[in-house]
Structures are given as structure tokens and as C-alpha cells.
């Protein structure tokens, strides 16, 4: 019976069940973070210990200050308290802690792959939806709730209903200037923000095969924005090479055994999916969002859409509301939209390749609006500094910070001024996400850097010097 990669991993981890109802799944590795204090609280109320501390990993990211690495750098006492709680809970429960001052610290979905915690064929969970990022390595990475996280802490298992499977196939050569973020935005706008609801997505096709590991992570990160709970890419030589020498990845004979398992994972050629979507990568252009869902994305050379041209009444209303919140006029050119602030970072685009792409643009000018560069992890920060990227950013007038979720979620001291318009490399542009009344435009790191240099949304392909040495 031919099987999909999803089914192979699911079946490998099924303890009880396997029928149409719920299955009890064994969890390979469980990530907890500073928002997990509710999960620990539930556990304490029940008086249960953590079953497998050695299969649990903890790091602080959401509430940390990007201004320093000491807990005292966190200005807000409540935020400081929850970061403190993570440290205490991890220590009390014997969970390996990658604390705020640890050189391996970072956004949980950035360090999962970076440290080799994520590997092909594992079942990974975290009480944060963007854990889907880790599916880029050919793992099954499922976002769960905090109460479910308690269940995993207590039992190292989880009850789940099997989702339907969707394959999103991308073929074609992506044109000059098109990044993984543009691909991700194009996919969300094709599928819609609930189009993959109830599904796990496998990304396949020659375009996906040609992506680097980090680019695959950007695509899997945003699988959630189509309503899916899982995004994954079959492991291949790119994956195996990426995992070499990562601290929690196997070595020596362990690696040989692991590799033998990893090679069995890709979907069998005649396995069926419940839904198939194909996207021509050759037609994708650098994208920006104009509205208040990640699906409201258009090529940068377009104009603000006109609700009156929309036939479906419900979409028409949603579009009008989005335009009202975003304070945009139908028909205006996207490149004429002036911005107040730029954010480069997050689990979508806070990795080293993202910072390199942004630096390449930043070196061609000077930021004319406040621009924040926040590495996705402390290792990314160190690597960028070793390459001199921090100097490029600082010389171009960008701020260079410590790692954390920062302006992606604006609950940690980094925030926009109410009503501001922000060019952001994060994954969510819902109303008020970056602060009260803040208008978010999602885009790639290169496009965000370009917007910083010009003060308006900008087609990076047309920016003087972009893509060339300057």
C-alpha cells in the first residue's frame, strides 16, 4: 500500500488507534517556551511530573527584550515574570533549558532546526502554530494548545485526529528577485487563509527541491497562514547535509542508522492526497500584502484592489473593511504606499540567509525610517557579526538587536506607534498585531530593506544597486 510521508511518520508514532477516530501518538520531542507557563501550571495543579524531560526543550523568545540578554533587561514586570517562570519550571522539572543568556538561545522555531532538535521522521510538537517551520526537515511538526502541551508533558503522547492531506506542487524557475517569502505569500494568496483548513500540506515539486533548507523553512512557516496545521517537505541530500554537525543531530553510527530511516520517508510515487494544488513558480513576483490577512498579497507592481470589482458579497465586505483599517485607496499603486517603520526578523525570516539578503540591499543606501534588524537566534546573530552584516546594517542606519520575537508580536517592549505603517518580514498582518491600529505589510527581507531605504513600498528589482555589488 503506497504511503505519503505524512502517513509514514504518523504510523511510526501511533501508540493506540489508527482508525477514523483519534489516535494516541508518541511525541519524539516537545518544545516549550516562555508562554508555556499555563501548561506547567495545569501540570502542577494535577500534581504530575514531566514524563520525559530529556525529550523536552525550553527556550525564551516571545517576551524577551531585544536590548539585552539579562532578565533585568525586560522592562515589564509581568513579562519578566513569565520568562523567569520558564527558567524555574525547566529547572524544577529537569528540562534542558536554553535560557536567555545561553549562546544557543533563539526563537523556538529557529533553534529547532539550527540545533538539530528537528530531524526527518520525528513527531515534534509545540504550543505555537509556527512549529510547522520544522516540517521543512521532513518532520511532522504539529502546533498544539497549552492544555495539550500539559498532556504531552505528563504522558509524552497526544491524542490527535488525522488531518486530510494536501499536496502543493511548485514547478518552474522562480524569476530574479523572487524569494522563499514571495513563494510563501503566493501560496497563501492562491489557497486562501482557510483553504487548507483541516489539512496537512506537503510541499513538493522541482521548485521546492531547489530551495535551500532555510528557504523551505520560510515556506513551511507560512503553511499555517493557509489554515493548515502542518507543512512539510520530503528530506533529501539538502536536508542531510544541513543536519551535519548540529548539536542534537546524530553522528557516527547513529547517523548511519538515522539516515537509513530518513531515506524511507519520502512519499511513495503512487500515494494519493485528498487535495492537490499546483502553483507555477515562474509566474511569482516579489509580493507584499495590502490587507489584514496574509492571503491579501499581490505582486509589488500591482495596485490596491477595488472592492467594487469583487463579485462575492462576503469578500467585498471583507476587502472594504481591510482597506479601511489599512487606510488605502483602491487603484493606488502599491509602490506609492509610504511606510513609517521596518522590521526584519521573526521565525519566518530571521535566519542568516534572510539577513544576508537584507544586508545586500541595505549596503546600497541609508534607512530613511526607523528600521529594526532582529536575528532569529543568538547563533544567527553571532554568524551575522562574523560576516560583518551587523556593520552593514548599522552603517546604513538600521538598528541591530539581540534575538527574540520582537516586533512580530509586539508584546516584549518592541512595538510600533499606534497608527503607524510597518514593512515587516513576519508572517501575520492581522489588525493590531504589531500594536494598536498598526498597519502591517508583509514582504521578504530584501523588500523590507528596500522599503527602509526609500520610505515607501519598493520593488527591490528596480532599486539602484540591488542584486549587484554596490
Amino acid at each position, binding site marked *: 500500500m503506497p504511503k505519503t510521508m505524512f502517513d509514514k511518520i504518523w504510523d511510526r508514532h501511533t*501508540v*493506540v488507534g489508527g482508525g477514523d477516530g483519534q489516535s494516541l501518538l508518541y511525541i519524539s520531542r516537545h518544545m516549550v517556551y516562555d508562554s508555556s507557563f*499555563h501548561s506547567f501550571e495545569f501540570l502542577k495543579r494535577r500534581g504530575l511530573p514531566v514524563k520525559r524531560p530529556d525529550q523536552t526543550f525550553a527556550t525564551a523568545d516571545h517576551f524577551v527584550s531585544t536590548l539585552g540578554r539579562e532578565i533585568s533587561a525586560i522592562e515589564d514586570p509581568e513579562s519578566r515574570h513569565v520568562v523567569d517562570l520558564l527558567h524555574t519550571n525547566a529547572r524544577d522539572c529537569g528540562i534542558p533549558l536554553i535560557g536567555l543568556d545561553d549562546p544557543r538561545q533563539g526563537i523556538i522555531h529557529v533553534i529547532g532546526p539550527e540545533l538539530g532538535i528537528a530531524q526527518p521522521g520525528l513527531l515534534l510538537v509545540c504550543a505555537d502554530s509556527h512549529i510547522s517551520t520544522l516540517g521543512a526537515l521532513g518532520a511532522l511538526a504539529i502546533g498544539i494548545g497549552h492544555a495539550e502541551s500539559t498532556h504531552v508533558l*505528563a504522558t509524552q503522547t497526544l491524542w490527535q485526529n488525522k488531518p486530510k492531506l494536501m499536496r502543493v506542487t511548485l514547478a518552474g524557475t522562480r524569476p530574479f528577485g523572487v524569494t522563499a517569502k514571495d513563494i510563501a505569500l503566493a501560496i497563501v494568496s492562491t489557497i486562501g487563509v482557510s483553504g487548507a*483548513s483541516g489539512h496537512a500540506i506537503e510541499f513538493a515539486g522541482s521548485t521546492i527541491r531547489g530551495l535551500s533548507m532555510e528557504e523551505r523553512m520560510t515556506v513551511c512557516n507560512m503553511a499555517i497562514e493557509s489554515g493548515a496545521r502542518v507543512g512539510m517537505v520530503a528530506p533529501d541530500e539538502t536536508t542531510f547535509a544541513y543536519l551535519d554537525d548540529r548539536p542534537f543531530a*546524530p553522528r557516527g553510527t547513529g547517523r548511519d*542508522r538515522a539516515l537509513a530511516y530518513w531515506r524511507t520517508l519520502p512519499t511513495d510515487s503512487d500515494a494519493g492526497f485528498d487535495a492537490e494544488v499546483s502553483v507555477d513558480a515562474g509566474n511569482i513576483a516579489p509580493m507584499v500584502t495590502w490587507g489584514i490577512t496574509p492571503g491579501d498579497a499581490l505582486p509589488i507592481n500591482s495596485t490596491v484592489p477595488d472592492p467594487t470589482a469583487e463579485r462575492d458579497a462576503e469578500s467585498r465586505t*471583507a476587502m472594504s473593511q481591510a482597506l479601511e483599517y489599512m487606510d488605502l485607496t483602491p487603484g493606488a499603486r502599491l509602490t506609492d504606499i509610504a511606510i513609517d517603520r521596518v522590521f526584519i526578523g521573526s521565525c519566518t525570516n530571521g535566519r542568516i540567509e534572510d539577513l544576508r539578503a537584507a544586508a545586500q540591499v541595505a549596503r546600497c543606501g541609508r534607512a530613511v525610517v526607523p528600521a529594526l534588524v532582529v536575528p532569529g537566534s543568538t547563533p544567527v546573530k553571532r554568524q551575522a557579526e562574523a560576516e560583518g552584516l551587523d556593520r552593514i546594517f548599522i552603517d546604513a542606519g538600521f538598528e541591530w538587536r539581540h534575538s527574540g520575537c520582537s516586533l512580530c508580536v509586539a508584546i516584549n517592549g518592541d512595538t510600533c506607534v499606534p497608527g503607524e505603517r510597518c514593512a515587516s518580514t513576519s508572517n501575520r498582518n*492581522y489588525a493590531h498585531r504589531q500594536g494598536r491600529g498598526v498597519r502591517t505589510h508583509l514582504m521578504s527581507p530584501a523588500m523590507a530593506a528596500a522599503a527602509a531605504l526609500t520610505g515607501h513600498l519598493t520593488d527591490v528589482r528596480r532599486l539602484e544597486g540591488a542584486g549587484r555589488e554596490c
Partner: protein
Amino acid sequence: MLKPFKHLTAIAAPIDGPDMETDVLFPSRFLKKPLGPEYAEFLFHDLRFHADGTERADFILNQDPYRAASIIVAERNFGCGSAREGAVYSLVEYGVRVVIAPSFGDIFYFNCLTNGLLPIRLEAGPVAQLRRHVKELPGSPLGVDLEARTVTGPNDAKYPFEIDPSWRHRLMEGLDGVDVTLGHAAEIDAFEERYRADMAWLFNGDP
């Protein structure tokens, strides 16, 4: 132990707008709050209250009789966006026991179930009808019967719904997942022993 749920007849409030994000149900600045009854205040906070803390009269939950609603009838893709479980805690603390919509954010849907809140998916047509009814006949209750898997509208029209049988059983008995799972301890331990042997490379890396 969760509150067992079998039948409910209660006032329903229509919440307008598709793609209602968890961020709107539960603004991010409350994420760091300890659990407790205070969560009732956080529900739809920025739609319910002005910046100075006074109520916004235009919001449905600030209007009688909807203020006392235990059922919410929403539009498609309700609870989309981040995994934010506070959205569910705040619904529960407010006293909401059932949310009806044509579709839900996936994680939100399961967060409801794990926390003893019943999410009901009905076709878009019936949901639109229910929304119209509860608007036109304020205060006339909806009936929800989990045993029979039906919603009864104000005009006695019955709408059947589907729910996974094991979740239905758990909600009806008020069982928490951990209790159910601990009953499988022997199977889990046996599985774990084999798993840790077969995937030994996972368990001897650097700490």
C-alpha cells in the same frame, strides 16, 4: 475534571465578521496573565471596551440580552490565527459553552475541545439562518443537544451536526485527556521502550 456537557438551552449572541482572529478574541497583551476568572474580562476586550475601560455600547456582548449569552454564533474561519489558547480560556470564563460557525481555525477548534468548550460546525446556510434568528428574536434561546448531536433554532428547526465520537464521549463525561491517557500507561511504556531502542540516536546526543 471538566464540566460534563450533555444539553444546553441558552441565549446565543451573533458575532459578526469572517476570519475572526484569536488576536481579536484575546488581545496579545493579556498573554502573560495568570489563569483565573479575570479572563472573562479579556474576551473581545478591545471590541468590548474603550481605552478608558468603559463599555462600547455598540458591541453585541454589551447589549441585553446578549450579555448573558452562553452560545456564540459566528462566521466562517472563527478563531483563526495564532494558537493562542487564552481565546478559549476567556470564552470559558465568560460562560460560553458552545460556539457555532461554518468553520474554525484548526488549533482553536481543538483547543475548545480540550478545554471542554463545544465547537459546532454547521453549513454556512444554517449558520446564517441561526444568526438571523438570534438577531431578529433577541433572547429567544438556542438548544444544543450533544447526545442527539442537534442544534435547535428559535423556530424549532433542528440542525444535525457531526463530532468525532471520542471527543463527544469525553465532553459528555467531562473527562480530561490526561485521565483517558493514563489508562493506556502500559501500552505507552511498551511503545516507548521500543521507540527509544529503535531511534537510539535521539537519546545519546549532547545534553
